[in-house]
């Protein structure tokens, strides 16, 4: 029986630049930054939540050949790598304003929905990130058929 998610990974194109962004701008903490000789094992976590790490990995040999790594980099920069992360916040609009002031590239301003308020941004490489402030449950789900 599985008990929790401890690590999940996304591809980044440069780990130093990834640190600048994920730690310097988003405010995550470095969990592990370790030179394993064959690779740099770099993980971050939300402050106060060290049991859930995000692995920031670069595509390349020997895990994958250079031609494959090139394809992965192209997909990442197209926003199509499939790697993305959703964070929770207590105040979406405030978080948005703070990150905007730091020069974070938003793809969607905060929008209110019945399930909460969310906004979306990209990391420097093209990965999609979303930030959600959940609405109090139970949700008040609208019924569009009654609008017609």
């Amino acid at each position, binding site marked *: 029986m599985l008990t929790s998610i401890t690590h999940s990974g996304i591809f980044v*194109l440069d780990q130093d630049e990834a640190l600048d962004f994920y730690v310097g701008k988003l405010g995550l903490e470095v969990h592990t930054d370790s030179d394993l000789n064959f690779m740099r094992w770099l993980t971050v976590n939300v402050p106060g939540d060290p049991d859930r790490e995000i692995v920031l990995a670069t595509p390349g040999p020997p895990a994958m050949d250079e031609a494959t790594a*090139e394809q992965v*980099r*192209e997909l*990442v*920069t*197209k*926003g199509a790598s499939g790697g993305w992360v*959703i964070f929770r916040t207590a105040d979406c609009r405030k978080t948005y304003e703070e990150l905007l002031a730091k020069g974070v*590239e*938003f*793809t*969607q*301003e905060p*929008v209110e*929905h*019945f*399930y909460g308020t*969310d906004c*979306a941004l*990209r990391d420097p*490489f*093209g990965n*999609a990130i*979303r930030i*959600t402030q959940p609405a109090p449950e139970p*949700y008040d*789900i*609208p*019924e*569009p*058929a*009654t*609008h*017609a």
Partner: protein
Amino acid sequence: MSRAVEESNRRLLRARDAMDRTYAQPLDVRTLARIAHVSEAHFIRTFRETFGETPHRYLQRRRVERAMFLLRETDRSVTDICLDVSFTSLGTFSRTFRAIVGESPSAYRASADVTAAPACITMAWMRPSSFGEAATPDRI
């Protein structure tokens, strides 16, 4: 070569994101090409090569997707929604909506279910792919 492709992709993605973000405002190719740091002709060509459709088509689908969202989740009138997503005439909006979705805005509203998914998920996955060309994927 690879780095050049990556940089081009990222700039084009930035322009595409601008369409996703500011679909409610008038947008022209000059503005988007400037975001991508390329000429207008180069922008249209490379955008199509990179994302498989012209910027104009991408934006139309985005506007219709957001209109579908507003029809599902709000009680705003069809005319208001048409203007919300930056169509300037109700006729063009209705015609484009029908061409993409296959039914009128009000018929869509009457039949649609609310989608309990976050906006960026619906924006990514519910942007309608049908525009006639979806049935012939081998077409360039």
